[in-house]
């Protein structure tokens, strides 16, 4: 049996906003991701996908249930050395350059200075950003920012990549580049947790797909079982309209 690198067991999360009604994001989420697989999460807006990722990143604290990330509590920074996160709208510091960000990632990962520079060169080449490395992030296009954020997320060679809509707003060339990087990263034995609304991307990249609805995992599918792109769309729509 393969190792379970990400585990959610009966996880509940309710957001309480001042003077507003409480909003339940996760009702009872149980989910397991195996080491080395590409697991895709799809679901309609408000299904709880982003909350699931935020809990894994330790940004949001769950109310009850159990969560483990490579056998660590995700709220502890020790678990973060295993993950690389690419958000839907990358939120890098607009006044700083990609080099500044990568140097920061290197220092935090406690890389020696020489190794930081080598890794920066590697990553700039990988995401094709060598020319713009010293330009302030605020001057980047959406696609460039996404590629810069991917380089930042992968700096410390994490075992798990958490990607939230990694291809949103990118042109076909940029999308292909990101898909190739994800697939290559997975071929090296790493795990990818992938969230997207673009079903064709999910079906193309993922080994397994989880469909979330109303704060829980409604169903899990193996990509190989799906005969066509339309089948995934049908399953998605029938789950979302339940």
């Amino acid at each position, binding site marked *: 049996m393969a190792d379970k690198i990400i585990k959610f067991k009966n996880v509940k999360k309710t*957001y309480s906003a*001042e003077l507003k009604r409480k909003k339940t994001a996760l009702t009872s989420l149980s989910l397991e991701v195996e080491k080395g697989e590409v697991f895709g999460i799809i679901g309609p807006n408000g299904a709880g996908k982003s909350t699931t990722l*935020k809990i894994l*990143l*330790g*940004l*949001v*604290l769950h109310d009850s249930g159990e969560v483990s990330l490579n056998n660590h509590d995700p709220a*502890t*920074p*020790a678990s*973060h*050395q295993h*993950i*690389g*996160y690419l*958000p839907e*709208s990358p*939120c*890098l*510091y607009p*006044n*700083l350059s990609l080099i*500044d*960000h990568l140097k*920061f*990632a290197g*220092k*935090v*990962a*406690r890389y020696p200075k020489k190794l930081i520079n080598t890794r920066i060169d590697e990553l700039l080449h990988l995401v094709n950003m060598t020319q713009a490395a010293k330009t*302030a992030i605020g001057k980047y296009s959406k696609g460039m920012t996404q590629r810069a954020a991917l380089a*930042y*997320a992968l700096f*410390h060679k994490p075992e798990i990549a958490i990607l939230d809509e990694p291809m949103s707003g990118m042109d076909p060339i940029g999308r292909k580049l990101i898909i190739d990087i994800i697939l290559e990263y997975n071929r090296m034995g790493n795990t990818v947790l992938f969230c997207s609304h673009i079903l064709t991307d999910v079906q193309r990249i993922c080994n397994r797909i989880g469909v979330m609805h109303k704060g829980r995992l409604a169903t899990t599918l193996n990509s190989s079982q799906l005969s066509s792109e339309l089948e995934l769309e049908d399953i998605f729509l029938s789950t979302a309209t339940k």
Partner: protein
Amino acid sequence: MNTIFAIASLTYKEGLKHRVLFGVLVAALFLMTGALLISGFFMRDIVKVLIDFCLSVTNLGGLLVPFFLTIGMLTGDRDKRTIVTILSQNVSRTQYILGKYFGLSLLTATIMCILAMATYFTLLGGSLLYGEYYFKSLSLYSVATSIVLSYVGISILNGVVFLWCTLTTTSFLATLLTIATYIIGHSIDDVVRFVESPPPGVTVATSIVKAVQIFQYVFPNLAAFDHKLTAAHGLAIPLIDSALLCGYGVSYIAFSLALSVIIFSKRDLC
């Protein structure tokens, strides 16, 4: 510790690139030059006016950090979600708070050092322009001590801003609370003195006296760090007083940051 330094360095770089900082620094230097001309109207008190003016501008430059940069950067990190950039790495929330604090303190120190240099050159220019006779009472040691104490006072305010930013959800509320802290911090001594020994014919309710006495310990006594007048009159600021004030400042900062860390570690961040 490396992680805290890395965050501090990132914060410092980010702070240095804020346009507002350059604008106000240029304005401050311009004001100091203007002070040279204005002080000419007060022939017998040239040095007092110059020192008072320059130290006020230095203090104002330092105050830019807690009022604009700290509030802007902390709430901006949350609103624009740049906090995710830091916390998605191997960084704890405690390291985030401490790193940000040290970065912003370093930024305050840089601004105040630049303005302190400008103060020195303004005084030098004043002595050349009006003659050394008027500058006999000048004590550079007192001026320097006053700037250092002013820096400690601003660092305390910076620590309190961290507390307000972790406690509230909007920059508006954090700014209001910071303004209130600043006003209370600069007037609490006078208010305590007034309620404890009111003028004849005035009675103050015991509950108010108690409340004011509690406020005195809860809010930082920022007025204690204001030694502009002492320096302007060329009087010495005893070393023991400075050391005690620094001790009080460090304790208050540690307390504010510890509370900020506790609150911040229990919050949902996005």
